């Protein structure tokens, strides 16, 4: 199948200017400015097939937003090629954006002072959506997203969760073939997050819409995306199944022990103490190095134990560790992992 997004060696540099100071300096700035070059996106390549739901994750400042801005045509790349939906986004803006949707969790696409119904009506006009398609989609979405209670409310008076649901509805009304979702669950509570995830899943599975999801919340990715792209310092570090990543790096487990007496010093081979609070001690160990039962045997041979519990390390911690310890650097991943 022909990929819907095709990105090759994409780079974006920013010039950060160092300004001259003072009145004379302000004038000098017009002609003579010195700058530092920042490689926000640095030689990124990937393809997305129609119908995929891909998670695009990475720490702050990794280059996620810059990539999305290039993909949506808001920014012109410094070098590299990209084709989305058969268009060159920044060059064919109007034709291109007609066929895509975008939701930025931090900002709304709706009209601040207008009631929600007016915003949707405007979108119908802007995208020339035929009445029957508009009605079918709108009725469908408002039911899933439960928009009815605040359809008459201006956007400025909506709660974050309500606004997000409204924005999601707006982004899909014109049957886009591709939608970019940038942090759609940011700042939301568990219930609201779940509702939004359900909607995203529904759209992807029932309508076959291709979705590129940028998020900080790894559980979004875990629940929605089979394939994940990890970017850091402007480079793609991983492109494949989340499960593959977790199998390789998610091997750490947590052993919480309550000792029967207070031991001044506790030594346990192959495990490290993460936290200690009186008789309560939390160890962490590598699944590959030692099994839980062996570790417990070793521990109970030397100490008296009152209670214990073994857990897998939470997935958030694994991902954070991958970022912080830069575990993906020099890791022999084939970046062209055929996830699709």
């Amino acid at each position, binding site marked *: 199948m022909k990929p819907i997004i095709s990105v090759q060696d994409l780079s974006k540099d920013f010039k950060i200017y160092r300004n001259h100071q003072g009145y004379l300096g302000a004038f000098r700035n017009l002609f003579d400015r010195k700058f530092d070059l920042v490689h926000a996106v640095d030689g990124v390549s990937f393809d997305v097939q129609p119908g995929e739901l891909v998670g695009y994750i990475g720490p702050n400042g990794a280059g996620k937003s810059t990539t999305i801005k290039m993909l949506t045509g808001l*920014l012109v790349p410094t070098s590299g090629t990209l084709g989305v939906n058969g268009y060159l986004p920044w060059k064919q803006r109007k034709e291109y954006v007609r066929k895509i949707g975008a939701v930025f969790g931090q900002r709304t696409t709706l009209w601040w002072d207008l009631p929600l119904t007016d915003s949707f009506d405007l979108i119908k006009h802007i995208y020339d959506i035929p009445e029957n398609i508009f009605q079918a989609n709108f009725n469908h979405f408002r039911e899933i997203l439960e928009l009815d209670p605040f359809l008459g409310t201006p956007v400025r008076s909506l709660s974050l969760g309500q606004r997000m649901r409204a924005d999601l509805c707006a982004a899909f009304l014109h049957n886009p073939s591709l939608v970019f979702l940038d942090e759609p669950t940011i700042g939301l509570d568990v219930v609201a997050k779940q509702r939004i995830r359900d909607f995203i899943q529904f759209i992807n599975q029932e309508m076959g819409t291709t979705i590129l999801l940028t998020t900080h919340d790894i559980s979004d990715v875990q629940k929605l995306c089979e394939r994940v792209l990890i970017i850091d310092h402007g480079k793609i570090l991983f492109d494949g199944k989340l499960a593959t990543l977790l199998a390789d790096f998610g091997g750490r487990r947590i052993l919480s022990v309550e000792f029967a007496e207070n031991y001044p010093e506790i030594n346990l081979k192959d495990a490290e103490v993460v936290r200690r609070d009186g008789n309560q001690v939390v160890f962490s160990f590598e699944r590959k190095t030692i099994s839980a039962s062996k570790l417990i045997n070793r521990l109970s041979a030397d100490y008296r134990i009152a209670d214990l519990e073994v857990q897998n390390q939470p997935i958030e911690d694994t991902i954070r560790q991958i970022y912080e310890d830069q575990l993906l650097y020099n890791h022999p991943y084939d970046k062209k992992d055929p996830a699709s």
Partner: protein
Amino acid sequence: MRSIKLLFHLIRLQIRSQLQYPVSFILEVISGVIILGFYFVAFALTFSRFDNIGGWNLGEVAFVWGLAEFSFGTMDMFFSGFDYDAFGPMIRRGQFDQLLLRPANITLQVFGSRFVLRRLGKMIEGLAIFIYSLSLIQVDWTTLKLIYLPLLVISQVFFFGSLFIIGATTTFWTMERLEILNIFSYGGNEVMSYPMHIFPRPIRMLFTYIVPAILLSYYPAVYILGKTDPLGAPAIVSFLAPFVTAVMFWLAIRFWHFGIKNYQSSGS
């Protein structure tokens, strides 16, 4: 064409939302008329101590004053999307990006992004001063003058509108540095300098005060009111306003498109 329809649709919706509380809206307009009108009343009282200043009597000055106020109010209503007070935050909050993501003409979308109906206050005030001036002076109306007057108002509107567009465009550069910081930390920097400052002061003065005062107010008034120009400029100078405006507006739009291109390749 579709974009023009969209523009009217946007304006209609904003008028409706601004008229949601009609009493408060009307009070706002009336208080606008009164406050702005005070400046003129104070000026007229001072003026009444002299018979004329530089050969211009109160009625003639009110004629020029009223026209300029009316034009500026009209401009401020239609061009308020380009007002740097509104456009700067629009870029900073990413709303301009949202407009770029819509399949419609970007310039018309900015026009439609803000329509401040309460500028009617300034328009009414200007119109009142203008009508008052006609009660003081005897204008020798001809067909040409009656055609030129509305053309002059349109010229003034678009000339000041061009300045608004140029001012908005400069924010693409002044915002740049702040926005790059935003890539690394969400949450905008609220500090922004007056964007026109990227132009040297004499150029700013020339286009914000001197050109509009001389070519768009003084000389057209010399013609309509039948004054003699002490500087003895040729009569054609009185008719330059529409041409100067056309050039200015063309330049403003060119600069605006250049700014957008720059914004897409380096900014945000």
